[in-house]
């Protein structure tokens, strides 16, 4: 029953006529067009992205029926400040690196604003408590807290250091993100924020069964639901019902006669005029299932008589490495550790849910705007589904609220494209949080059996490794998991003999796919914990042991070839050594003085190597153009889902050209306007796409110099570039504007756009080998943990992280990536676990909050790469690898018994403490 509701919104009186039970969030976003306030969960109060101020007090707008705000005052992020007049908090968030993807930012800002209004000088603890209900998956919270401190100081009128906005040179300085003013004011439009008034709404009919045959699909009742226009099933797919190339044997929609293989498998798409009608349509689609026996345990799925989940059986892929004679090496060892480690399904839990907007663009292409790691890949996977050529499909990367691998799955793009294909109209879809948990790929759970040998003096001998990776219902980009599991699982160590075998096994669990570190954190966890067991057995030192056994730069590794890039593992271990020693000594003293208390302090260390090589041919292209307006335009495909790649590309271009960042415009990740980088983002973007961008702008500079030298009558070598002009030598009087150069190029018929190619085939001659991954970044972390041995509660108090980044293009963003990865790794170590059929969302999948955050100290070790731009390497994913093993080693040492399964919940810690003889 509609009512008229009047309230003050961002200082202005507004009146809406609506159902008073609708949420304030919906009314703000849909009726009032204020999309700065975000929805991260199923309107259940769990995420905090929707936080607004009601009479100055923070509330969840998703839990606030709009009727309640009658006569009251509402403040949203849009009312806090605007890009030209940023609120001190917005300015501080921008300057301190508190914003990565920015999806949590509006909520964080509003919670912070309420705090500072009440308490102008909050303690750190008070800030943490004020923000404890706002989830952020990217930053690890430290920079957000620092931003609030900075803003508070400024608002009190204290002079405070400039947050680093003004730096002379584009790289190496702490620089602002390119689109930061929009992100901190709620102006950035993520997919769900993009207006498209006549768009239809799509919802998905999904399997409630783990494993069942689809006997029949009856869409009649759904079509009778008012507003439902169409129900699409497998029969409506014009091309191939497959996303082969990304995921072997995965259908877009399970056909009648086929089998659903997991809860959340898609069976039909309902397209309607409103989301509610689409939802009602989903409920009305009648699917008859014949349940089949379900397998959740990969060991059971491997049994000879196990029900085959896919036609070819339950093994998706295998990989093995043999080096030397592992058996002989183990037999000749003084000590052998033979242990099994287990990990669980993990969810990316980005604060933005999956969303897409599809339409037909001006050139008639089926266009989908949705988060992706390489839009060209998605285009190429999706075109065959529609029976179209790739050129008839366009994929655009919008501002995206985090990925961590989640957005590499092309299913959503395929389904949206299919809907647009049939409806010839724009269509939008956003998953519910539950759906996101059910249907998106997870991190593979591993069972790793390690047999490791060493001599009495602490030299590693043999490694036998068996990994069973649970890939769930589908390949989902998991085909190469065994390969990654083993490369990470052997580590940057010198082994005399290796016998390693890994297999990826189908079950009826959720499909497992890409997630930060792709298949490596699990085996690195098991490796680094196993090594710690060996170190304790030998009474050795964790740093010295690793240093003693670390691969040297030029030696042939156990993979059969030497590394082709600089390897900073020794430097990293040496950098962290004093911090390890200091924390270890302090922990001993603590445990001694607290002998009678239930508290124990533990310190653990773990290392890692992580490959950031590119698949296939080591060649990437990008383009650079001189615009008619005299600005440089860079075209590349390096999707930015929050990690800051767009900023890095602009920085690299500006540095290479010797101009300021303002002179560069970036066109990024749109299949209609940029080249295919075939680099799926993340850790590889800086090194590979960045390298191509540098080459493109270098080539452009040459073309510009050639033309300008004619205009200025000087040799090309004397040409100096400035932001808007070109000068002959240092003489500002002899100059022409870049726009004039562009006009001259037009007149001469010179192309203003050039291509730059990074081609490393000569440097990496082995690239055609089946497994060739010669580029590694390395790192090591120390965790300090306080454990209550009577309740099993553990608190990670400190993490020190040393990472080789080659050269930090944006040191603050590099630190931010590391902090975010550590907090995510902490979640995996202590609390995160997706249980198929049980876990539904943020209320039962706990991710770390501001209160969980440890003190983090980052040591950037810079061992320049040989081939990367300005010596840079890849970073985004790697820092997650050492966190969980460092924490688990710390806990195990504290309680005197090993924990071999993560997450180390209070239960598991308590059980270990009892095994360790404590209480």
């Amino acid at each position, binding site marked *: *029953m509609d*009512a008229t509701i009047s309230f003050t919104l961002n200082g202005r009186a507004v009146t809406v006529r609506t*159902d*008073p*039970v*609708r*949420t304030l969030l919906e009314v703000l976003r849909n009726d009032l067009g204020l999309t700065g306030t975000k929805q991260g969960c*199923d*309107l*259940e*109060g*769990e995420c*905090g992205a929707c*936080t607004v101020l*009601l009479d100055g*007090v*923070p*509330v*969840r707008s*998703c*839990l*606030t*029926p709009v*009727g*309640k705000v*009658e006569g009251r005052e509402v403040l949203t992020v849009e009312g806090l400040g605007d890009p030209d007049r940023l609120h001190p908090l917005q300015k501080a968030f921008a300057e301190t690196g508190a914003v990565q993807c920015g999806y949590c930012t509006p909520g964080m800002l509003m*919670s912070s604003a*309420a705090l500072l209004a009440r308490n102008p000088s909050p303690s750190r603890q008070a800030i943490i*408590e*004020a923000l*404890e*209900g*706002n989830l952020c998956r990217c930053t690890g919270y430290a920079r957000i807290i620092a931003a609030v401190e900075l803003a508070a100081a400024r608002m009190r009128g204290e002079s405070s250091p400039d947050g680093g906005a003004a730096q002379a040179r584009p790289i190496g300085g702490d620089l602002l993100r390119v689109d930061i003013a929009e992100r901190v004011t709620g102006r950035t439009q993520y997919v769900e924020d993009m207006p498209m008034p006549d768009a239809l709404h799509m919802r998905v009919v999904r399997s409630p069964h783990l494993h069942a045959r689809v006997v029949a699909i009856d869409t009649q009742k759904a079509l009778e639901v008012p507003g439902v226009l169409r129900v699409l099933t497998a029969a409506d797919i014009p091309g191939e019902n497959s996303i082969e190339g990304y995921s072997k044997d995965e259908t877009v929609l399970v056909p009648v006669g086929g089998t659903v293989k997991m809860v959340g498998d898609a069976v039909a798409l309902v397209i309607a005029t409103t989301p509610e009608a689409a*939802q009602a349509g989903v409920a009305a689609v009648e699917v008859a299932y014949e349940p089949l026996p379900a397998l959740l345990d990969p060991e059971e799925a491997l049994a000879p008589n196990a029900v085959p989940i896919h036609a070819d059986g339950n093994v998706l892929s295998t990989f093995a490495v043999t080096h030397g004679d592992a058996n002989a090496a183990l037999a000749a060892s003084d000590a052998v550790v033979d242990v099994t480690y287990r990990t669980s399904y993990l969810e990316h839990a980005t604060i933005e849910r999956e969303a897409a907007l599809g339409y037909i663009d001006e050139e008639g292409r089926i266009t989908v705007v949705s988060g992706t790691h390489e839009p060209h890949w998605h285009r190429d996977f999706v075109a065959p589904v529609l029976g179209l050529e790739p050129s008839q499909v366009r994929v655009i990367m919008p501002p995206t609220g985090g990925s961590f691998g989640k957005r590499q799955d092309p299913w959503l793009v395929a389904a949206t494209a299919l809907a647009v294909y049939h409806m010839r109209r724009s269509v939008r879809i956003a998953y519910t949080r539950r759906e996101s948990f059910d249907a998106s790929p997870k991190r593979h759970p591993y069972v790793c059996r390690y047999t490791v040998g060493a001599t009495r003096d602490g030299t590693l001998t043999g490694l036998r490794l068996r990994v069973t990776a649970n890939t769930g219902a589908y390949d989902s980009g998991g085909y190469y998991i065994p390969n990654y599991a083993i490369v990470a699982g052997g580590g940057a160590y010198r082994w005399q003999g290796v016998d390693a075998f890994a297999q990826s096994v189908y079950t009826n669990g959720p499909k497992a796919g890409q997630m930060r570190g792709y298949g490596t954190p699990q085996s690195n966890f098991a490796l680094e914990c196993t090594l710690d067991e060996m170190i304790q057995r030998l009474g050795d030192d964790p740093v010295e042991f690793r240093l003693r056994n670390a691969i040297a730069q030029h030696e042939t590794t156990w993979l059969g070839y030497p590394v082709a890039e600089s390897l900073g593992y020794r430097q990293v271990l040496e950098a962290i050594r004093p911090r390890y020693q200091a924390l270890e000594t302090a922990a001993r003293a603590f445990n001694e003085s607290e002998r009678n208390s*239930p508290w124990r302090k533990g310190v653990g260390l773990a290392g890692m190597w992580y490959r950031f090589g590119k698949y296939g041919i080591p060649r990437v292209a990008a383009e650079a153009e001189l615009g008619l307006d005299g600005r440089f335009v860079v075209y590349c495909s390096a999707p930015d889902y929050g990690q800051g790649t767009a900023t890095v590309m602009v920085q690299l271009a500006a540095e290479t050209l010797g101009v300021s960042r303002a002179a560069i415009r970036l066109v990024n990740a749109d299949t209609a306007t940029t080249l295919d980088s075939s680099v799926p983002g993340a850790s590889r973007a800086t090194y590979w796409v960045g390298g191509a961008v540098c080459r493109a702008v270098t080539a452009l500079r040459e073309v510009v110099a050639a033309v300008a030298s004619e205009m200025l009558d000087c040799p090309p070598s004397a040409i100096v570039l400035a932001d808007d002009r070109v000068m002959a030598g240092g003489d500002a009087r002899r100059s022409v504007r870049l726009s004039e150069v562009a006009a001259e190029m037009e007149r001469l018929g010179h192309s203003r756009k050039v291509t730059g190619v990074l081609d490393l085939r000569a440097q990496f001659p082995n690239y055609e080998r089946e497994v060739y991954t010669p580029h590694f970044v390395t790192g090591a972390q120390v965790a300090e943990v306080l454990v209550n041995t*009577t*309740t*099993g*509660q553990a*608190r990670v108090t400190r993490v020190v992280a040393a990472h080789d980044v080659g050269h930090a293009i944006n040191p603050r963003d590099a630190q931010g990536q590391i902090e975010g990865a550590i907090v995510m790794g902490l979640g995996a170590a*202590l*609390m995160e676990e997706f*249980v198929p059929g*049980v*876990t539904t969302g943020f209320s*039962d999948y*706990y991710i*770390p*909050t*501001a*209160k*969980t955050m440890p003190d983090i100290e980052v040591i950037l070790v810079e061992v320049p790469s040989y081939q990367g731009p300005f010596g840079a390497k890849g970073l985004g994913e790697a820092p997650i690898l050492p966190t969980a093993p460092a924490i688990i080693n710390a806990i195990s040492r504290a309680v005197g018994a090993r924990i071999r399964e993560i997450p180390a*919940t*209070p*239960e598991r810690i*308590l059980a270990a403490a009892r095994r360790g003889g404590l209480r």
Partner: protein
Amino acid sequence: MKDVLYFAPTELTEALKLLAQYGEKATILAGGTDLVPRINYYELKPEVLVYIGNLGLDYIEQSDGKLVIGAATPTAKIAASPLVAEKAAALAEAARLSASPAIRTAGTIGGNLANASPAADLATPLIALGATVVLVSAKGEREVAVEEFFKGPGETVLQPGELIKEVRVPIKKGKSVFLKLGRRKAMTLSVVNVAVYVEMEKGQRCVDARVALGAMAPVPLRCKKAEGVLQGCVLPMSALEGAEFLDKARIEKAAELAIAESSPIDDQRATAWYRRKAGKVLVARALAAAAGVAI
């Protein structure tokens, strides 16, 4: 969730009239932090919503030796109240540790009780403090002890047409303590929570002890057996006469009895095994803190 009749009365009598008129069809809306998620997720389709935030039930007062808290008082206000901190420390602490700031600003004490979650954080301190709730309807008023208010998960003694008007907490001389364990530090439902109240005569003899456990049974639980073994005990160094010493062993005995009275279950958050082990530690720690005994 559409086509709901929504009322926001400004007088209690008006609200009671609406509740009487619509009977079982009426649902009370306070902070909405428990109710609205269920409505949003289509689980619940109320026909009539009566918002009680404008009835003037948002107050914390001291009268007649009691702390009187209006049912629509937000948890945040309870957490921040010096009066509550002084007179009912365990309640203040429970309020401080529940949910997160933007939930506490909306969620109310009445809603926390009426929602009747076995893990409701405010229920245990109220039981330990011997609090009562005042229930009103168009027909009249009654007062019920909080420990008798719950009947099962999501079930209470509330009748259609009735609402919680206020909570009354007797102000007593003893000390109350609240402890909670969850699966993470913030925004976490209790895996187990404990509230105790202990009154020590001359600081040495236990003359009153109350123990309550949350998330350990279908309802927030009062543990009378545990309380029994503490009554009359004296501190080991005391000059007073007492039945037994109130020492580490006695406290552990009480903790054991409390756990024996509970019936925890396995769920996503923890197993019953863990709840028993950790719950016992928590009871002992809370009792020791309240009685001033080192354990």
